[in-house]
Every structure is written in structure tokens, then in C-alpha cells.
């Protein structure tokens, strides 16, 4: 069984079509990069997988269950198994690194325990280990608004990891970072995939980064899949087709 199987996934925003019947499968432990220009539907695709956006039609099967049929508690349970990382980190800036990381455990808690922030000793221990692994142990008790962009994104990764997810969705994780912080983040994502066996699906603007890090590339153009395969099979011609450019080099090739 495939870990993730997407069948004829379609999404309309009012009249505008964002996804036009995409189909693909992702295996456990794969590192998949989704490339395409802004507005091609990359973000929508990612958010249809954990139902942060409601698909209009099609199927999304995660471990064999169709996520579109899930309601309330079942939907929450699905989401605990899928971590998510954002371009703008989406942290609670006035809280400490540790608090933000532990937010990843809320999905496992009763309403009351979550409201008062009742985390078990094991959960805190686990969070501290992950914080250390990401090189943030100097900042465990720092407020997130005092961190740099790269550090904030590492907090975002830690928050996803503390969920013990099977899959991590990354929406432009390095788009707001300088090149060296971007490398640190991408290296961490690759380590997570290789050593912890977690599947990573990452939306990227940077073709060179996608080529360097991923096992597999999906090219999205106007809501359709125009390429799905190994990075080394992706020709210049195809890249230009994905980005809708005629000739010349793209800036980060």
C-alpha cells in the first residue's frame, strides 16, 4: 500500500481552477520536491493533503483512508500524523521555543489538558531532545521573536517532529531565508527523511535546491502534473515548460 495516494484531485476557488485532476502516489520515506511558478497550485496541493483546504473533487488516501471522509476527531487524528512547516514559520512569537515546540503535542491531548498546557514529563523530554538535535539548545527558553529566520524555521521543524509524524509537508520552507540558513534547513529536512524514515514533501521555488536534495521531483503547472520522476531525468526544456519561460537561463540554475 502506498503511504499517500492522490487520485484526480481537483480544487476550484469559485470559478478559478487551482488543481485540475492531479494523480500520484508517494511511498514511505521518499523525499519529494514540488516545483512550479507562483500560483501553479503547489500550496493548494499541499493543503488538500491535510485538509487545511477542502478539495472540490478527487481522493486523497493516507495509509488507505480517504481523508475527505474524515470528520472532527478523526480529522484531528489524521493531522497529528502529518507535520507541516511554513514559509513564515507560523510560530507564537511571544512564547518560548520550548512552548512552541510542545504545541506539536496538542493534537494528542484532551481539551482541558491542552488549554492549561499539561504536558507529560516524557513529552517535555522528547521536545528537549529534538531541540538539541536541531542545535537550538542555547535558545530553549528564548522567546521566538528574538530568534533569526533560520532559527525560527528550525523551531517550526521541531514542532512538526514532536508530533512523531509519518509525513511532513513543507510549504516554501526556505523562501524567506538567506542561502546559508536555507542550506541548514534543507540539510535538516534530508536528515529527517533519511534517518527517521519520515516522508517529506516540500514545495520549492529554487530548482537547483530541488535537484540537489530530492529523490523525486513533481512539476506543477496550472494545476496539472507536467513532470513526475527522478531529478536527473528533468531536462532544461522541461524546467522551462514548468516555469512557462521561452528561452534563456532561470536565475538559480
Amino acid at each position: 500500500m502506498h503511504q499517500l495516494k492522490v487520485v484526480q484531485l481537483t480544487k476550484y476557488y469559485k470559478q478559478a481552477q487551482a488543481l485540475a485532476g492531479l494523480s500520484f502516489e508517494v511511498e514511505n520515506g521518499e523525499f519529494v520536491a514540488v516545483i512550479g511558478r507562483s500560483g501553479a497550485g503547489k500550496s493548494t496541493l499541499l493543503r488538500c493533503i491535510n485538509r487545511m483546504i477542502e478539495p472540490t473533487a478527487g481522493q486523497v488516501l493516507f495509509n488507505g483512508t480517504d481523508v475527505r471522509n474524515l470528520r472532527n476527531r478523526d480529522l484531528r487524528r489524521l493531522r497529528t500524523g502529518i507535520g507541516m512547516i511554513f514559509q513564515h514559520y507560523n510560530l507564537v512569537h511571544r512564547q518560548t521555543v520550548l512552548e512552541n515546540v510542545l504545541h506539536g503535542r496538542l493534537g494528542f491531548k484532551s481539551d482541558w489538558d491542552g488549554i492549561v498546557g499539561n504536558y507529560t514529563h516524557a513529552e517535555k523530554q522528547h521536545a528537549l531532545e529534538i531541540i538539541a538535535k536541531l542545535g537550538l539548545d542555547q535558545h530553549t527558553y528564548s522567546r521566538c521573536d528574538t530568534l533569526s529566520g533560520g532559527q525560527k524555521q528550525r523551531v517550526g521543524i521541531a514542532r512538526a517532529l514532536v508530533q512523531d509524524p509519518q509525513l511532513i509537508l513543507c510549504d516554501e520552507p526556505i523562501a524567506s531565508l538567506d542561502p546559508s540558513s536555507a542550506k541548514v534547513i534543507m540539510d535538516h529536512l534530508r536528515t529527517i527523511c533519511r534517518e527517521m524514515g519520515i516522508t517529506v514533501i516540500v514545495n520549492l521555488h529554487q530548482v537547483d535546491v530541488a535537484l540537489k536534495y530530492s529523490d523525486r521531483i513533481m512539476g506543477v503547472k496550472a494545476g496539472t502534473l507536467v513532470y513526475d520522476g527522478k531529478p536527473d531525468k528533468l531536462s532544461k526544456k522541461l524546467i522551462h515548460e514548468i516555469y512557462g519561460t521561452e528561452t534563456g537561463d532561470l536565475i538559480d540554475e
Partner: protein
Amino acid sequence: MKPKKLAREALAAGETMAKAIPPRDIFGERRRNFFLFALLFLALTWWSSWGTEFDLWSAFASFPKALAWLGLNFIPSADSLQYLPRIGEKLLETVFVSITATTTSAVLAFALSLFSSKTTRPNAWVALVVRGLGTFLRSIPVAAWAMIFLFSFGQSPLTGFLAIFMETLGFFIRAFIETVDETSESSVEALRASGASWLHTVSQAVLPSVVPQLVSWILYMIETNIRSATLVGLLTGTGIGFVFDIYYKSMRYPPAGLVVLSIVVVVLLIEILSNRIRRSIQ
């Protein structure tokens, strides 16, 4: 660097001469717009003062005279200090009414704003109803609320409390919705995506993000409401407003002046205090 770039742009513009947009004089446009706006502003002022037969010039001209009268009559005398305990007692009552009205409406308004903010609302209809309630409450001025409650509750601090509560609730609903929208959208998304429940996201993402803004609004409204409470007191016969009314109508101007002075002192003290609190919880 810059001239070179400009030259390059000019060259590029030259190449596409056929499609080029004629250059716009944006500075001239801004000057003209400003001039037009100023003219409109003056015309509006003149028109509305003409419409109400309100003579702006004689109003300004009578200002010194009014000040002189105040200066002569409203100076608190040594004699008026005997009224100080009574003034203090009523002033404290007024301050308490405004604080309780502000804090209770803040709690209710925060709960309501969660049902209306884009990031936390359960559905668009509930959001619209809450927003409508806020607009309705705001559109009735505090003096009108005081008159309405005066019928049902008579001359008591409760009347003043309710009047201020209503108006503050209307204001807070709007302010809090905007605060929740602005400060917590992204973290709410992250928590929802990790499987957190609605109550989790509200308590762990929304609340910590909005606290400084909310406290700031609450402190601001406490200040404002002390002034409102004075007016409401005048109308409903309670608190410091009532005391002022009695002294004023019985032509005991020095103690009336003392009332005004003590209100100013209290408002200033609260402002200083709230500035300190605001700075310490960024």
C-alpha cells in the same frame, strides 16, 4: 549607480517606444490632490457651520471670556476642601464603575470576537451576527443608554454601569476582532494543521498573541470610561457627575472646580500607570 540605472531604463523605454506609457507627473498630482482636499475640507467646515447658523468666529472670540470666567469662579478655595472626603468617595465609586464595566465587557467581547474573527469563527453567519451586534451597540451613544436604563433601574450605580458596559462592549467587539485577525492568523493555521482542537488554538495560539494589544485596549477604555462615567453620572444622578451637578447648580463654584481638578488628577494618574503597564508587557 543610480544615473546609470536610469539611463538603462530610458534606453529600454526607448526600445519599446510604441508601447510606452507617457510619463506621469506624480509630484504635481500629489500637490494638486492635496490642494483639492484642503479646499474640500474648508468648504465642508464653512457649509456645516452655515447650516447650523453657528458662527465660528464669535465662538473663538468668546473663548478668552469663558476662560476668564472659569478662572475667576472655578478656583478651588481653601474653604471648599471640606468637600474633599465626599468628592473622593464619589470619585472612587465612579472609577470602580468604569473599571468593572470595562473589564466585564472585555471578557464578553473577547469571547464574542472569537466567533467573528476570520481565523477562529465557526462559520460566516455567526461572524456576521456578532459584528452586527457590535455595530448596533456602538451606534447608540452612552448618554442614550443611560437614559434607557434610567427607566428600568432608576438612580443607581447599576444604571451607569450598564450604560458604559453596553457602549464599551460595542467598541471592544470591533477592536478585538481586528486584533485577533491581525496577530494570530499564522499560528492558528499551524496549530490546526497539527491536529489541535479549537479550544487548544484559542488558548495556546490566539490568547498569548493578543494579550498585549488587549491589555492596551482595556487600559485605554478605563481612561475613556472615567470621563464617560462622569457624564453618565450627571445624567443618572450617581457618582462624581452627580456631585458636580449639585455644586454647580447651587452655584458653589469653588467645590465644583475641585471636582473637575480631582477628575483630571485621577485620569492623569491612570494614564501614567497604564503607560507603565503597557511598556512592561510587550
